[in-house]
C-alpha cells in the first residue's frame, strides 16, 4: 500500500505546483485581454478621466507583477480578496455557486455513471445485436447535438407541458427533494451529453478483453456470458473506464456554462464568463483555480483507483 501513499503525496505536490503555474497563466491571459475592468464597467460611458479615477480606486494602475504578488500573498493566507466589480468577498460569491455546481455535477453523475456502465456492459454482452446498435445510435446522437439544443428540446417537451420547471432557480429555502425536481432538466441534459463517452469506453474496454485467452478459457469451462463479463472481464477493464469517468466528472464541474445559462442555474460557469468579460481578475483566478483543482483531484483519484484495480501495479517487483 505504501506505493499508493507515495503516489498520492507526490501527485498532490505536483498538483499544487500545477495550480501555481495555472494562476500565472490565467493572470497573464487576463492581462493580454484588451481593456480592463474600469473600461468594461463604464463601457460606452467611459471618459479618460473617469477610467483613470476608477483604475486608481481599484489599484489597477499598479504594475502587473505587483498586483499578481499582492493577490498571491493573499491567496496563500487563504484570503482570495474581494471582487473588483462589486466589492463582495470572493469566498461569499463562490460559496453558494460552488455548492450549486457540485450539486448539479453529482446529480448528473449519479444518473449518468450507473446508466452508462449498465448500458456499456449490456452492449458488450449483446454486441452487434439490435439492442447494441440502438443504444449506440442513441448515445452518439445525443452527444452530437450541442448542449443548448438538447436543453431546448427537453424544455419544449418536458417544461412547456408543465412537468418540470424550465428554470432551475435555487436559493437557501429550497429543500433537497425540491432541488432534485428543479434541477432535473439540466441534470438530464448533462446526462445525455456525457453518457455516450463513458458507455462507449465501457463497451470497448470489455470487448477488447473478450478476445483474450483467459476469457476463452472461462467460456470453455461453460461459464454464463454475464458472469464472464462481470467476474472476469470487468475488473481488468476498470482502469480505462475509471479514467473516462473521471474526465467526464471534471467536465460536469467545469464545462456546463451553456446549460447553466439555458436553465438560469446560478453555478460557477456563469460567474467565470461574466468575470472574464468584465476583467474581474481576482474572481477569474479563484474560479479557474477551483476548476483546475477539480481536474487535478479527479485525475489523481482516477489514477489511485486504476492502480488499486491492478495488482501488478501495487505489487511491483
Amino acid at each position, binding site marked *: 500500500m505504501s506505493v499508493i501513499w507515495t503516489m498520492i503525496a507526490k501527485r498532490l505536490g505536483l498538483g499544487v505546483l500545477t495550480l501555481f503555474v495555472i494562476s500565472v497563466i490565467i493572470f497573464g491571459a487576463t492581462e493580454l485581454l484588451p481593456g480592463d475592468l474600469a473600461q468594461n464597467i463604464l463601457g460606452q460611458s467611459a471618459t479618460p478621466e473617469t477610467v483613470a479615477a476608477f483604475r486608481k*480606486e481599484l489599484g489597477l494602475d499598479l504594475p502587473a507583477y505587483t498586483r499578481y504578488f499582492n493577490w498571491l500573498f493573499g491567496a496563500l493566507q487563504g484570503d482570495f480578496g474581494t471582487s473588483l466589480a462589486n466589492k463582495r468577498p470572493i469566498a461569499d460569491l463562490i460559496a453558494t455557486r460552488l455548492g450549486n455546481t457540485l450539486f448539479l455535477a453529482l446529480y448528473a453523475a449519479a444518473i449518468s455513471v450507473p446508466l452508462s456502465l449498465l448500458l456499456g456492459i449490456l452492449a458488450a454482452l449483446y454486441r452487434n445485436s439490435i439492442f447494441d446498435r440502438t443504444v449506440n445510435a442513441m448515445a452518439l446522437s445525443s452527444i452530437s447535438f450541442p448542449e443548448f439544443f438538447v436543453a*431546448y428540446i427537453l424544455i419544449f417537451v418536458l417544461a412547456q407541458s408543465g412537468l418540470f420547471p424550465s428554470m432551475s432557480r435555487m436559493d437557501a429555502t429550497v429543500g433537497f427533494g425540491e432541488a432534485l425536481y428543479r434541477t432535473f432538466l439540466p441534470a438530464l441534459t448533462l446526462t445525455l451529453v456525457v453518457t455516450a463517452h463513458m458507455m462507449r469506453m465501457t463497451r470497448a474496454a470489455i470487448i477488447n478483453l473478450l478476445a483474450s485467452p483467459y476469457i476463452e478459457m472461462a467460456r470453455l469451462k461453460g461459464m454464463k456470458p454475464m458472469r464472464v463479463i462481470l467476474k472476469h472481464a470487468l475488473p481488468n477493464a476498470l482502469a480505462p473506464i475509471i479514467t473516462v469517468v473521471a474526465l467526464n466528472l471534471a467536465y460536469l464541474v467545469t464545462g456546463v456554462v451553456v446549460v447553466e445559462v*439555458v436553465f438560469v442555474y446560478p453555478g460557477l460557469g456563469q460567474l467565470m464568463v461574466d468575470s472574464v468579460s468584465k476583467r474581474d481578475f481576482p474572481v477569474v483566478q479563484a474560479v479557474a483555480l477551483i476548476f483546475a483543482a477539480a481536474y487535478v483531484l479527479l485525475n489523481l483519484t482516477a489514477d489511485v483507483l486504476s492502480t488499486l484495480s491492478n495488482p501488478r501495479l501495487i505489487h511491483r517487483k
Partner: protein
Amino acid sequence: MTDLRSQNGLSRRGLLKGATALGAAGLILSASVRRAMAEPKRGGILRVAFASGNTTDSLDPATWDSQFVQCFNVARNATLTEIASDGSLVGEIAESWEASADAATWTLKIRSGVTFHSGKTLTADDVVASLNYHRGEESKSAAKPLVDPITDIKAEGDTVVVTLSGGNADFPFIVADYHLVILPSSEGKIDPMTTDGCGAYVLDSFEPGVSVKMSRNPNYWKTDRGWFDGIEALAIVDSAARQNALITGEVDVIDSVDLNTVTLLQRAPGLVILPVAGNQHYVFVMDTRATPFSDNNVRQALKYGIDRQELVDKILQGYGSIGNDIPMGAQQPYYNTELEQKTYDPDKAKFYLKEAGMDSLSVQLSVADSAFAGAVDAGVLYSERAAAAGINIEVVREPSDGYWDNVWMKKPFCASYWGGRPTPDLMFSTAYSGGAPWNESFWDNARFNELLIAARSELDDDKRRAMYWEMQDLLANQGGTVIPMFASYVMAHTDKVGVPEVVGANQGMDGLRAFERWWFV
C-alpha cells in the same frame, strides 16, 4: 412633406398599426382597451426577467450599466426630478425649482417628509453629497460628464442651490438621470455601497447576476405609486430561456423580446407584447476627421446609400421607425418637422460621390452585435444596398467583447447606439458638440457649437425652437452620423399585469419605473 412626416412620426398608434400588419391585432388592441379600463390596485409579487444582469453588478450608482441594475435601483431610490410617462418633467425629491435670469443658478426646493428606509429623514445635505459623489477629480462615475458643468452646489435650509459654469435651461432634466439618485449621507459623504434608499421598494436581497428581491416601502410618500407588495427581478440573459419563463408563467414581465421570435411569442395565449417607441436609435458613425469621411459629399452619399425602411422591416421586424440622421425621436418637442426625410436613393448617392470627385468608394464598416442587436446583419444589408450607388462597403465583424474600448471611436466607420436623451441639448452636448468626450463622429461644426450654447440659456421658446431646428438641419446634412432607425423598446407581460395608458419612452421598462408604475389587475 406631410406624408414624409407621418412616415417618420411613427408613434405608439403607428406601431399598433404596424403590429396589426404582423397579424396580432386582436392581441394588442384588446390589451390596450383593457389597459384603459383597469384601475391600479395594491398587491402581488411582480416577477420580472431581465435580459441583462451580470455577476459583476454593484450597488454603486457610479457603475449602473444595465437595465437590470438601473431598474431595481431606481425603484429603491429617487432622483431630484422625474421624467413623466409623457416626456415632461415632474418633481420627485425636488418639489419645485427656479432658475436665475441667465439660467446659470438653480434653486431646488427639497420635498419635506421624505424618509429613507432606515428611518433617516432626507435633507438638502443628502442631496448635495449625492451629487458631489459624481463630481470632481476622484469621480469614476459614468455620470461625471453630466454634472461637470456644476461649479458649486450648496444646501440652504430646505433648498439646494446649484451654480453652473454657463446658463442651461435644461438643468432640471439632467438631475433626472438614474445615476444621480439621492442616498443618505453622513459628514458630507454618501456610502455608495449602501442598501438604503428612499424609493418605493426596500431592498431585501441582491445576488449579482441572479436575482433581486424587494418589498414595498410602507412609508412611501407617493400615494399613487408602488402597487406591488414585492418585486422579484431575475437576470435571464438567454432570450429563449427568458421567453420560456414568460410562457410557462414563471415570470410576469420580460424586459426585452427577441425580435426574431416575436411572432411566435404573439401566438402564446395570455401574453401581451408591449412595444414603446422612444428615443433609442441605432447608428453608423463616421470619423469626420479621417479620409474619406472628412468630405461632406462622401458623408451625404453614405446617408443616401442606406435603405432605412428595409432595416426597420428586417432588423427591427417593424418595431421601430426610420431615422433622419437626427438623434431625436419624432415625438420630442423640438423635433424639426420640416426637414426633408432622406430615403434610399442610389442616384443621389452617386451624385454626391461625383461631387467628391469619385466614381466609386470603398470603405470598411466595423460592426459587432454589442453595438446593437442585429448590427452585423444591418451592416450587411447596408453594404448590399450601397453597392448600387457605387459604394463598396466591406463589413468587418469585430469581437463583441471589448467593442467599446477597441472599436468604437477608434475605427473610422462603425456601428453604435444611443438610448437617446430627454432634451435636444442633452443629446447634442453629449454626442455632437465639438470636443465632447462621447462625440463619436469627432464632428466639430462652429455654427452648431455656437447655436448649442446660445440655445442652452435661451428662455424664449420660439427663438430656441428656431435654433434647434437649424442645428438638426446641420446635423442631418453635414454631420458624420447615419441614423437609419429608431428602435422601439419591446417588452412583454402576462395579461395579469396592469400597464398605464401611456408608457414612458425615455428608457426601457417604462422609463425604468415599471416597478412603481405598474400593477396587477
